[in-house]
């Protein structure tokens, strides 16, 4: 795989607790240089990211909730709308996992649908935390996210209980409509493994900057 192809598969995420302003500036500079598909940085610096990425091909994404998706829906929508207004073209949310475990499927769908409405023409990716579920539950989670209007289904968050598996992507690809894309996150494998995920149906990958650099080194420089 060529570097240019790889770059357009990566959502490079720099959101660690100890992330700094200097690190965020380096994140932006690297994204522009490598032309990553998108970046997600600390939410307090969204205006800086939006300003610095203006005119580049790099999309700006953001989260709108905590990693278990359990924020109240009003705040999820408020945050997503605000981030969109500040310049984010994509929002990554987490399905309300407590609702899912409680079989509160109508509430779960409403939670996602309201966020989708809040961001208008923005792109919504919904994490289903696939590592928590058996095959049947993962099918259900993916189908609920799709029914609620998510544009992408994302395998997991930075709090995922285990690394994403090919099995999970194959299940999601089988049950999701063709127009709904799949993001694998958090991805920490090799370029060969990334290509296997693509063959299974993955459309992009959520990676930390160090992982993006490692993949970049592996890819062909032409």
């Amino acid at each position, binding site marked *: 795989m060529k570097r240019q192809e790889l770059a357009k598969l990566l959502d490079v995420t720099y959101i660690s*607790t100890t992330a700094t302003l200097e690190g965020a500036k380096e994140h932006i500079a690297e994204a522009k240089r490598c032309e990553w598909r998108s970046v997600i940085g600390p*939410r307090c610096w969204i205006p800086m990211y939006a300003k610095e990425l203006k005119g580049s091909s790099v999309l700006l994404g953001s989260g709108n909730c905590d990693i278990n998706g*359990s924020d109240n829906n009003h705040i999820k929508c408020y*945050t997503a709308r605000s981030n969109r207004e500040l310049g984010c073209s994509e929002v990554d949310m987490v399905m309300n996992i407590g*609702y899912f475990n409680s079989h509160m499927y109508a509430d779960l769908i409403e939670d996602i649908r309201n966020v989708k409405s809040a961001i208008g023409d923005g792109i919504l990716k919904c994490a289903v935390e696939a590592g928590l579920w058996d095959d049947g539950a993962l099918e259900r989670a993916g189908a609920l996210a799709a029914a609620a209007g998510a544009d992408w289904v994302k395998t997991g968050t930075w709090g995922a209980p285990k690394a994403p598996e090919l099995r999970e992507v194959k299940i999601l690809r089988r049950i999701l409509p063709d127009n709904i894309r799949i993001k694998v996150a958090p991805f920490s494998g090799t370029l060969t493994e990334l290509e296997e995920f693509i063959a299974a149906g993955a459309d992009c990958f959520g990676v930390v900057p160090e992982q993006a650099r490692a993949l970049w080194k592996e890819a062909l420089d032409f």
Partner: protein
Amino acid sequence: MTGHDLARMLDGTITATGVTQEELRIFLQEAVQRDFYSVISARCYIPEIVETLKGSNTIPGSGCCLSSGADATHIKAYASAYNVSLGAQEVDIVMNINYFKSGMYKEVVQDIRSVKDSIGRIPLKCIIEASILTDDEIRTACELVVEGGADFLKTGTGDEGPTTLHHIDLIAKVLKGRIKIKAAGGIRTPEIVEQFANAGVERFGISHRSVFRLLDAMDAR
């Protein structure tokens, strides 16, 4: 200290990924029965918590941000005010650790101050995540939290590591009683509870996974 003594200093938390309505219901029942000071749970359940705790001695609290505290200030302030409008009687926030680690101390203070202003008389507890700070950073964080107007300094979220007696001693020495101390993260034994209380801790944050075992252990001595 007895289990009940601890319960009256306790924010019982049930915020783990995937907590169900039924698990929350059982936890709330037990929290009321054991006379917890407060309960903090997933924010989507605040209305149910408020309703269930009505008429009891236990109050509903809430968080308002990510565990890194990196949300935009206006989002933190809005979420805090919203949770209070739903009935939360205390708010826990995380200091913006990204600002702090970047040396943006003015922004750290403004962030805390904006949340405090948004909730008025409601007590605000501000987490500094002591386990990932150096001693010098802890001293600085203490001063910023006081300047920001928080009512409590809270040691950690529990996500980044345990709170130690060294943290508490250092924080108490810097704060000198100007604001209260809430300890959270890795508090598992009666001995730790008593050491922390003797060192100046007035509130404990303990999760549903260990809280009942700890209360029983305190009564069993």
